[in-house]
């Protein structure tokens, strides 16, 4: 490609700059990292997350039949199993599954559903922050 075309044409330069800006914005809107999501929940909670509290929340039941562990395993670093359908569930801890907690909408959808199943209500930002902070501590 002849780059001197860009130097000569302000229109080309402007178009290229706009395309780059759009691409950056688009990827920023869809993608996230587990740390970024944790930052968001922590800000909403207004206090620092406690990983140990997240582990306890994950492992114990909350007045209903299932705990998070029922499907994900006590320490979700390997494939779990859906408690009613038996379908395999890929590891939840981000260090063991690079896809986890990289999409804000997907993360929110599963928190909504699963908290409803396990706790009977939506989880609070503080509960989400505790849980995610614990999952992030799990390393190979």
């Amino acid at each position, binding site marked *: 490609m002849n780059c001197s075309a860009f130097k000569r044409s302000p229109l080309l330069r402007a178009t290229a700059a706009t395309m780059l800006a759009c691409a950056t914005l688009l990827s920023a809107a869809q993608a996230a990292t587990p740390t970024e999501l944790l930052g968001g929940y922590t800000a909403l909670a207004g206090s620092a997350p406690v990983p140990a509290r997240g582990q306890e929340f994950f492992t114990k039941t909350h007045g209903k039949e299932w705990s998070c562990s029922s499907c994900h395993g006590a320490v979700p670093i390997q494939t779990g199993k*859906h408690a*009613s*359908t*038996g*379908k395999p569930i890929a590891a939840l801890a981000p260090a063991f599954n690079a896809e986890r907690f990289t999409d804000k909408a997907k993360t929110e*959808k599963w928190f*909504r*559903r*699963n908290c*409803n*199943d396990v706790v009977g209500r939506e989880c609070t930002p503080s509960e989400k922050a505790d849980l995610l902070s614990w999952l992030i501590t799990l390393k190979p």
Partner: protein
Amino acid sequence: MSRTTPTLLHRVLIGLLASTGLAHSAMAEGNGRTIPLLPLYQQECAACHVAYSPTLMPAASWTHIMNNLPTHFGTDASLDPATLKEISGWVNAHAGTYKRVSEMPPQDRITRTVWFERKHREVSAATWKLPAVKSAANCAACHTQADKGDFNEHNIRIPR
């Protein structure tokens, strides 16, 4: 270049096929009809269970299921309105219309259809209770290729 290495073109083609729902791995088989799965159906519904073919129940059963996702067989499977609308339209468009599935099975369960019960009548009660099976909804416990929409009897392996 090695013949087994996928080229960029291959990857692009596979991506296109997958995005249009025509990839071989995303098919559903039901009573002799094989239909390509809507990728969104695969993504949202097959996250928790086998992508059951919409052809196996009448539209009235699917409508009832799709209208009650927050209480879906004991779990919250709620969707955002746009996704709900797209998947509902697709399952209804592909729902069973022929005589064998014209009746709504009890509790909207494919496993309670006359067809399912007849096909599985030789499976013993003990087999259904095996820890590896547990639920009749767990197709993949015995139908080893169920995730690919293949329920051919040659691919059945009943766990012990």
